[in-house]
């Protein structure tokens, strides 16, 4: 006999449910493939119906991402993804909104929208594919390209100083910043899930390789031989240890961070800085995010995660508050409000 109390169990979603029928058209060997795969791995873990996911993007190689996801997707215009995504989230706060950007899209043409999305702390997830180059326009320097980089538009080397996404995001009042690399699918998936669970604008910077125009730009961090000495995987509440046997660590010495080795010069684990991602004060988060080879490891993982009221929460609260005391409840009421007179 049928038991009417039994709610039919929804079949759990799988990676396959999130793959669209479109042919993926990135260059063979592009880091974007790994990011796409990490994303289709992450989404089934979020317990959200597929129809509630929206992927928004601007222009660039990265921006093709929504076509390859079997969710709602909107491939918009150059740099404007955060603004479109903001409208989507405000229109329907129940949606899980993901915004995919490259470094040119996010930090050059769309820099203004990028910082203001972070400032407002709208509850969306921004995935920044940082390959330090323009790919789709075929190889010009980007705002994250290192000084001296030779590209089609800088044949004598770039003379510009690059942005660091983390500093920009934190300066813009960002509440969540994580960094990951395209060569570590497990870490990417983990961080995407973490970002989705953060309430507020989550910025995930993926150090991504452009195999055609800027190959190996992140090799100092991602190459197999550099993995142990130049990657520091942080977790909130854990000491900042790295190296093959986890013997190297980061110590705060005065106002500077330094690399120390356990057992040398009387250094013990007590000297090692413990990561506090939840600290409102972003000073240490910025210092950690700035560390880079050759003198330091690159910090990967969730560097900053603080809770602040989101823009969509604030708007909802405001609406609730105003509605309670409202003296009119329809447009008809409004039309009749104030000074009116009758012609008889």
């Amino acid at each position, binding site marked *: 006999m049928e038991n009417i109390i039994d709610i039919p169990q929804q079949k759990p979603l799988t990676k396959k449910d999130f793959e*669209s029928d*479109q042919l993926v058209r990135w260059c063979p060997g592009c880091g974007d493939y790994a990011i796409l795969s990490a994303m289709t791995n992450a989404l089934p873990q979020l317990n959200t*119906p*597929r*129809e*509630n*996911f*929206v992927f*928004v993007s601007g*222009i660039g190689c990265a921006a093709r991402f*929504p*076509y390859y*996801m*079997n*969710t*709602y*997707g*909107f*491939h*918009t*215009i150059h740099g*404007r993804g*955060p*603004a*479109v*995504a*903001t*409208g*989507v*989230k*405000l*229109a*329907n706060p*129940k*949606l899980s909104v993901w915004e995919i950007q490259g470094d040119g899209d996010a930090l050059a043409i769309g820099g*203004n*929208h990028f910082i*203001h999305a972070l400032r407002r702390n709208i509850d969306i997830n921004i995935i920044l594919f940082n390959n330090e180059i323009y790919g789709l326009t075929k190889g010009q320097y980007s705002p994250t390209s290192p000084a001296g980089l030779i590209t089609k538009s800088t044949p004598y080397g770039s003379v510009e100083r690059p942005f660091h996404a983390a500093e920009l995001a934190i300066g813009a009042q960002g509440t969540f910043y994580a960094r990951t690399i395209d060569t570590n699918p497990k870490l990417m998936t983990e961080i995407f899930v973490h970002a989705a669970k953060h309430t507020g604008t989550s910025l995930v910077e993926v150090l991504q390789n452009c195999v055609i125009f800027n190959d190996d730009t992140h090799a100092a961090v991602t190459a197999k031989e550099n993995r142990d000495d130049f990657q520091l995987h942080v977790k909130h509440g854990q000491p900042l240890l790295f190296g093959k046997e986890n013997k190297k660590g980061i110590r705060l010495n005065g106002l500077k961070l330094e690399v120390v080795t356990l057992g040398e010069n009387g250094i013990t684990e007590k000297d090692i800085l413990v990561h506090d991602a939840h600290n409102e004060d972003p000073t240490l988060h910025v210092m950690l995010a700035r560390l880079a080879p050759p003198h330091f490891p690159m910090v990967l993982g969730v560097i900053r995660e603080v809770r602040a009221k989101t823009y969509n929460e604030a*708007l909802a609260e*405001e*609406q609730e508050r*105003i*509605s309670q005391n*409202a003296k*009119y*409840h*329809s*447009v*008809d009421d*409004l*039309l*009749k409000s*104030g*000074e*009116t*007179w*009758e*012609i*008889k």
Partner: protein
Amino acid sequence: MGETALNGNKTTKELEKVVIRFAGDSGDGMQLTGSQFSFTSALWGNDLATFPDFPAEIRAPQGTVEGVSGFQVQIGKIEIYTPGDQADVLVAMNPAALKSNLQFARKGGNIIVDLDAFSERNIEKAGFTANPLTDGTLAGYHVVEAPISSLTKTALAGLQLDNKSIMRSKNMFALGMMYWLFDRPLSETEKYIDAKFRKTPALAEGNKRALTAGFHYAETIEALPAMYNVPPAKIEKGIYRHISGNTATAWGLMAAAEKVGKKLFLGSYPITPASDILHELSRHKNLGVITMQAEDEIAAVCSAIGASYAGQLGVTTSSGPGIALKGEAINLAVMAEIPLVVVDVQRGGPSTGLPTKTEQADINIAIYGRNSESPAVVLAASTPANCFEFAYQAVKIAVEHMTPVILLSDGYLANGSEPWKFPKTADLPAITIREPELDNGTYYPYNRDTETLARGWAVPGTPGFEHRIGGLEKQEKTGNVSYDPKNHEKMVRTRAEKINRVANYIPELEVQGNGDGELLVVGWGGTFGGLRTAVTELQRTNRKIDFAHFNYINPLPKNTKAVLEKYNKILVCELNLGQFASLLRSKFPGINILSYTKIQGQPFLVTELKEVFLENLKD
């Protein structure tokens, strides 16, 4: 001018219509004075139209010409369509106000000045080389030199008010004088004062005393020769309110959102003269309105597109410079076929141009100002009150035809106001959403309605309708990215045809007149009031002149050609270098279309138009 009657020792003159202009320093409260006079006159039963004329600077130095703020109102016993060409009565609160407003006073009209403000220093500050009251500047005007400041001071003596507060009441003294002059009761303004200064009774008392003192002063002095009587107009029965163009636009958008059961989402960036729409909508969040003051014009339109994509009603409001920035995003909405309303409150240009002055020069950018073949619907409101109707229409067309709609307003409509017999929302036309449908279990985002060619509106959160859209060309039906040459041509033609077919859903062009005129005057948008008045006045003298006014710019009404080809002579009047005339010539070659234009940041004057029309009727 009508009959003359005795009123005590003074006479009363009946007038068909009269124009009054209040001018003073930005801080003198001229906008308030003008709107109080207008409200009292509306209650009296006059038809009227108003226009504020304020400087771009917020508070230019006191006493300078740059700091003068003006308010003009025309009241009548006949239908009034404009605030009037020239003032029959000019109230000038200081020399600078006189200096900058004398050009708007009718020769032979009345000028009332605050004599106390004509100190040597103020005269010099205003840029006069000699005292205009005595050097013959005002020859030919009837000047009333009233010591408004000192009489206000006397009237308020004994109240616990500082000098500044006393001086700020002098606008009420001037208003009181006008109430006597036009035989209006003080009661409505007294009620207003009581409400406004509820918490400061001394200020309420002071303002009311100044008002009454002004009234009695006007009655007493010999200088005012007559009272004027402007009898009530024959106005359609019903309940009325005042409305400005920007408020009407905001409310029209809200009414449409309520009708269609969507939240209104406004993404906007402050810009003159459109900001008041943002301000107005920001007040009504209790009705489900969401407003976002974006980081720039581009984010404003993009957030609105995002909101529409997600199933609410995305709107962005701006003026010319902002519209220029929004072009790429509007094109995204054209390509993605998403409902979007873009309000362009036109101002003088190019570039920053004349931010507070009116112009009609954005018709080209609205129709053509985007890359490639980019068809969008363009509407133009033509009175402050019908901004409501066309904002509503803009939403209706955007939703029913899945397209961006650009609504053109202008600085003149935005800030001008008029009495409005407002509708009940139940009587507004229905707005039907085109719900998406599955085709054998699959959703094709670019499946189209066979009549309108509009696609369905499938919104995120709806299971089974997951799909991807964007700015790349898409395959017909599936919406997948396609670079196929034939498909591209088909899609370009389909998008254009979709907009052309909107003509099947809009009203036909109407002609005001007998239909047998020797001249057809054509206008569009905010010039309606001036054109209509000028044509009507000539028709009353049996001139063979007809008038057709366009609110639908793209597509044009279906009968446009049939209307135009009946006339041997057509004169298109507009505040630009002839953009609409060019449009008509390109659409209807062979029809003789002449153009009359003006680009001064000011509306047409009725007298100016009548001269032009008579000239054109001659040959």
